[in-house]
């Protein structure tokens, strides 16, 4: 067993050297820690990282007082990362991806003195822990506004006689077939429809949040199907760059893609997470309680549009968006106004909905309190509107409305 001895000696040496190094490094104690599924190559994670830096700067935190962990999978490594951030002294720990939630809850139970927050999650209002929070924003309003820009562009293409088919058609690259994505593409579609009533939309799914090749292929497929404009809810540059190559206008998400797509990028909606981070970290520092389930809005500056790219956008896009925004603020316009769309019910489609003769929604039971059987538990049609993000921050609109065709339901 000579070799065994040697190995033990090597291991010991490594440990000792490690201890030596560990002993001599000095660090400030961090306050906030952020856990990201991917890194800055993903537009989604980049948006969080940028917001985190912005918020920490605004709160006067120096470098080293906040830590960002990237490429953390949606499994036990999320729990390990959270635990490590706590070990280093963080009092506020945030995770950005849907699948991180169970592991954040596990960490929250173990460290009751630390505040844990999670974006897009659904369980905070049911697990009822003082130190576990969900947050999201009414991004459907942002997507609706971006949809207006898309609709105006389609009108312009139509006037120029350059539609690929007889009527305007959009294409949408989605990641997964769940409420967050469905709510997103439906609001985008309704925004476009508000200015271009004839528009229809095709949606295809990639089954992944970040798969550049699949997103590019999906966009190309839609373009070949005769779509006049593309938008996406998946996090790589796949769809925007496919549009730039094909010369098809693109309404982006998570942030501006104008530098890579100067000729085709119209506008992008994004959630600005900085207001939430400032609010939550400040409350943590002051030892105050903060919302279990927080929904940002246009008012809190959480829902934003990037600058419009005049080179690709239709004329007067800004004015139309501003007008709609003012109507949102006044309460005269609503994204999911049941009178603006119709729904068809069939055996396997929209079974939880009830409609009137014209096909407008009169009732919908949504699965707000997540459970394994997706039991519909809450009536969400209120005052002629599908009340999105009011019973919990994460979206629960999962109705398939008329005018939108799903090309596939991808299993990854």
């Amino acid at each position, binding site marked *: 067993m000579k070799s065994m001895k040697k190995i033990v000696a090597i291991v010991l040496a490594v440990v000792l050297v490690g201890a030596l190094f*560990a002993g001599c490094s000095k660090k400030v104690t961090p306050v906030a820690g952020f856990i990201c599924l991917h890194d800055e190559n993903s537009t989604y994670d980049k948006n969080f990282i940028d917001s985190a830096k912005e918020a920490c700067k605004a709160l006067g935190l120096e470098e080293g007082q906040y830590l960002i962990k990237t490429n953390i*999978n949606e*499994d036990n490594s999320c729990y390990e990362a959270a635990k490590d951030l706590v*070990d280093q002294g963080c009092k506020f720990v945030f995770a950005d991806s849907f699948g991180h939630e169970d592991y954040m809850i596990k960490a929250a139970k173990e460290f009751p003195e630390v505040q844990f927050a999670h974006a897009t999650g659904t369980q905070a209002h049911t697990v009822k822990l003082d130190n576990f929070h969900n947050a999201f924003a009414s991004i459907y309003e942002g997507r609706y506004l971006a949809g207006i820009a898309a609709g105006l562009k389609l009108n312009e293409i139509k006037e120029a006689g350059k539609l690929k088919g007889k009527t305007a058609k959009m294409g949408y690259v989605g990641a997964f077939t*769940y409420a967050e994505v469905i709510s997103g593409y439906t609001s985008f579609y309704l925004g476009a429809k508000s200015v271009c009533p004839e528009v229809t939309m095709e949606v295809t799914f990639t089954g992944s949040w970040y798969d550049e090749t699949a997103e590019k292929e999906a966009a190309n497929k839609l373009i070949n199907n005769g779509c006049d404009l593309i938008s996406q809810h998946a996090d790589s540059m796949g769809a925007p760059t496919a549009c730039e190559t094909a010369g098809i206008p693109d309404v982006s998400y998570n942030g501006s893609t104008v530098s890579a797509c100067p000729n085709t990028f119209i506008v992008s909606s994004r959630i600005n997470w900085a207001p939430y981070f400032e609010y939550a970290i400040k409350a943590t520092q002051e030892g105050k309680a903060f919302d279990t389930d927080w929904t940002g809005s246009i008012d809190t500056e959480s829902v934003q549009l990037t600058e419009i790219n005049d080179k690709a956008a239709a004329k007067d896009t800004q004015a139309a968006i501003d007008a709609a925004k003012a109507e949102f603020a006044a309460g005269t316009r609503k994204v999911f106004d049941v009178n603006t769309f119709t729904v068809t019910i069939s055996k396997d489609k929209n079974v939880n909905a009830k409609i009137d003769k014209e096909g407008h929604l009169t009732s919908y039971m949504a699965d707000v309190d997540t459970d*394994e059987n997706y039991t519909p538990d809450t009536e969400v049609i209120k005052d002629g509107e599908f009340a999105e993000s009011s019973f919990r921050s994460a979206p629960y609109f999962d109705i398939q409305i008329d005018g939108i065709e799903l090309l596939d339901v991808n299993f990854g």
Partner: protein
Amino acid sequence: MMNNEKKPKEPLFHIAKRPAISWQKAWGIRVIAILLAFLFSGLVIMMLTKQNPISVYATMFDGCFRTEAKFWQLLQEMALLLCVSLAVTPAFKMHFWNIGAEGQVLIGGLATAACMIILGGKISNGLLLVVMIVASILAGAIWALIPAIFKARFNTNETLFTLMMNYVAIQLVSYFAMVWEKTKGAGTVGEISFGWLPRIGNNDYILNIIVVLILTVVLYIYLNKSKHGYELTVVGESENTARYIGINVNKVIIRTMLLSGALCGVAGLLIVGGKDHTINSSIAGGRGFTAIMVSWLAKFNPFYMIATALLLAFMQKGAGEISTVYGIDKAVSDIITGIILFFIIGCEFFINYELKFIKRHKEGE
């Protein structure tokens, strides 16, 4: 020296195979290679990130040893990587290029998760664990058996076959992640509450580590002291020799791949039942490929693999820490890992071969 005048362009050196080399000299070469690797990657770090390389290395150590939890995580990562490395070793020693460990681990994990989800709460936890163990080992073994049978029967190319089996496994896992998803359409299963492997004391990590260390000893004995181990080595050296001395080559191929797959299944069990308690297509985490490196670097010796697995686990965890602390892209830390591995693998060349510098012949002038 008759043709002295005809070779003005005599090469500066030529390469010759070394005779046996003393272990002191071999380790000397290795140490020099590692020092050079650190020096060179230090230069790269300075050029790319303008950071002081010493503090970057210190951060790597920090990422592995700063807290007790970090140290345990390092050991657990080492153990899981080692488990997959042990799995690929018999096949590689037999010169069967099993690139499919990633898929075999995934399928083992999928079988484990299936038991946890379908049977969890319906049978006693002890029985559930037994079912999980059997299912994961069987699943991994079957996944390896398929390419082995094709190799033995039709002499198909095992590299391509096992590689493609990975993609089938990934798609299967993605499909079931959808079937078992917690929120409709989201594609994530979430934490499964049944069938967790037991904790020893108050430690989440130690069971996985112990299991793998036991497997290491068993595999060492299997490879070096058993008839099976001898047979697969002979098949690896020369199939014709093996046939000549009466070894049933096809039988050895199938038997060895069954073992390889079964061990991958165990890795899947440890990952899903003992660590993640969920299933998704990234749980194998590239270990199936890194394991090949671990196994080769250790020259297929299970005990040396402890050290090489530790080295790779260390670099992985250290790299993660670098990207967190300095906010630099993970690609930079991957570059560092790549450079270090390049030097370590490269130095084996200088252990097996030597450069003979050719002396200039003065008399030609």
